């Protein structure tokens, strides 16, 4: 050690000493920066420029006709939204709308309907990356957020309380959905994936209000999803859901089909009568 420091000390007056020290300093700084700063960026898993560019290309083909070439939105002549601006809606909104097939819309209408998705998973994440790059908005939730496999019975029950407080007014207490004003409706939710339900709460698609993570925490949301999925696992009694409307639908069915059927059978019994033209043989 002493030998090494002496050797270095001997060379310290060399004319290369300055540049070498400078070089070492630069390498060290650059190396440290490379070691720490990009690592942080990786943790954010920000989309690559390539992904954003691909998303932009997809967007300009499939979405720009309504949302504008730069997703700035298009107004109609009367000043209504033709396609709303997507700046700041976030990647989660894009993933929900496109993965449920609601976007791209088949035609302008009261409400975007669920259909077979047009884009595959890779394309959806590229579109999401592009829209996320336009302005800050809710990112696609991580898988641990909506993981419902480890929920306890208590947590699922609490999810039921959250569900009945926040969701059932529109989506029905069995998640079957219901009618809204002006021809709109709240869709049934039990076929959606946990990720889609989570994103719907986070982004408030169409008329649905937003339930931010700051108020209804990610864990609360996971509990709600756990409850909905658990509800779906329960056996159907009788085999007909009848829209999950409860006594009204069941009573209507019993009165119209049940009692109506009995009336028809009674009429049928009274209408049929076989008679014989033979005479009874007396003392046969």
């Amino acid at each position, binding site marked *: 050690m002493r030998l090494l420091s002496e050797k270095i000390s001997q060379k310290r007056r060399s004319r290369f000493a300055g540049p070498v020290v400078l070089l070492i300093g630069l390498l060290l700084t650059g190396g440290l920066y490379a070691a720490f700063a990009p690592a942080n960026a990786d943790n954010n898993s920000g989309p690559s420029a390539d992904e954003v560019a691909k998303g932009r290309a997809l967007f300009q083909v499939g979405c720009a006709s309504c949302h504008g070439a730069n997703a700035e939105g298009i107004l109609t002549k009367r000043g209504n939204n033709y396609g709303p601006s997507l700046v700041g809606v976030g990647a989660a909104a894009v993933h929900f709308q496109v993965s449920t097939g609601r976007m791209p819309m088949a035609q302008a209408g009261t409400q975007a309907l669920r259909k077979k998705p047009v884009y595959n998973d890779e394309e959806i994440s590229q579109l999401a990356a592009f829209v996320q790059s336009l302005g800050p908005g809710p990112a696609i939730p991580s898988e641990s957020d909506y993981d419902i496999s480890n929920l306890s019975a208590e947590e699922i029950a609490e999810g039921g309380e*959250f569900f009945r407080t926040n969701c059932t007014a529109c989506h029905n207490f069995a998640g079957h959905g219901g009618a809204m004003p002006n021809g709109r409706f709240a869709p049934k939710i039990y076929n959606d994936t946990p990720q889609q339900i989570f994103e719907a709460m986070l982004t408030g698609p169409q008329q649905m*209000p937003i339930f931010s993570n700051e108020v209804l925490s990610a864990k609360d949301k996971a509990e709600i999803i756990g409850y909905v999925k658990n509800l779906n696992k329960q056996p159907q*009694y009788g085999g007909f859901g009848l829209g999950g409307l409860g006594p009204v639908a069941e009573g209507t069915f019993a009165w119209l089909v049940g009692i109506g059927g009995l009336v028809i059978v009674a009429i049928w019994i009274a209408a049929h009568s076989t008679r*014989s*033209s033979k005479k009874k043989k007396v003392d046969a």
Partner: protein
Amino acid sequence: MSDNHELEPLPQAEPIANPGLPPHQPRPTDVDPAAERRAERQVSAFFLLAALLSLGFGFAYFTTDVGDHPTTFLGLGASTLFLGLTLGLALLCLGIGAIQWARKLMADEEIVEYRHSASSSEEDREEAIAAFQTGVEESGIGRRSLVRNSLLVGLGALGIPAIVSLRDLGPLPGNKLYHTVWKPDMLVVQDVGFNKIKPADIVVGQLVNAEPEVFSPENKGPDGEPEYTGTKLLDATAKAAVILVRMDPNDIKDKKSANWGIDGILCFSKICTHVGCPISLWEHETHHLLCPCHQSTFDLADGGKVVFGPAARALPQLPIKLNDDGYIVAQSDFHEPVGPSFWERG
């Protein structure tokens, strides 16, 4: 009328000869002993099948599980399915057997029975009236006025127990309908979770179903137990439940309503002013709040004004402000009664 006399007088009776009943036609079972025996076998087969199905009901009751881990059959709850099927079919088989019995085997000769007058005979009626008169005479209810009047007093006094016990059902409502548990500086917390809320937690387009903080189980009464539980909690919640919504402040048309909120965050009663259903179907783009019971629709951007449906009054708004820690609190109680209209409000 002048031409009445030109009408032919009506025939006195039987304008058309009574054709009488058509001749009776026997059924196959009446004339053919083989058919008769067959019908007999059919009837008893249905009755025995009903017995078997009732036995099946008992079997299904004890072999299928209900509760947390129900037995399933083709994805249906086996217990309910088989109990319903066996009992339903057993009753049906009894019914079919009875009908078959009546239609194939019981006598079906047509007979004629004439109706009789519904009133009693003259003698019976006079006898009953006489017995009643005798009773009145003998009891002396018309003559002995002391007995009669004291009886009336005795019967009338029975009203006292009725009034007292009905009064005992509860105190008069007083001015309870005009107030809720909201007080100045009471925290507005999320329903179920009871977490406090800062304006920054709520984004534009958000809905929060909220309650006063006193409903939290953490809020202990003087006895160390949660202050609001059971029916007391339900009664208080039925009036104090609220929703917080946030909209773009530029969308709010009613200036007073905007001033009662914080940067577009408004707090409204969750109780519909029609018949008091909890109301939280909020469309965040139209700012309309819809009641699921009778479709009353309130415009939250316009002070909760009714825009559709049977509700007669605007939705009451709770004035909110921030406390020193930056959490949303109530400025005061509601300034008007929440929920349905009532008689004294006029």
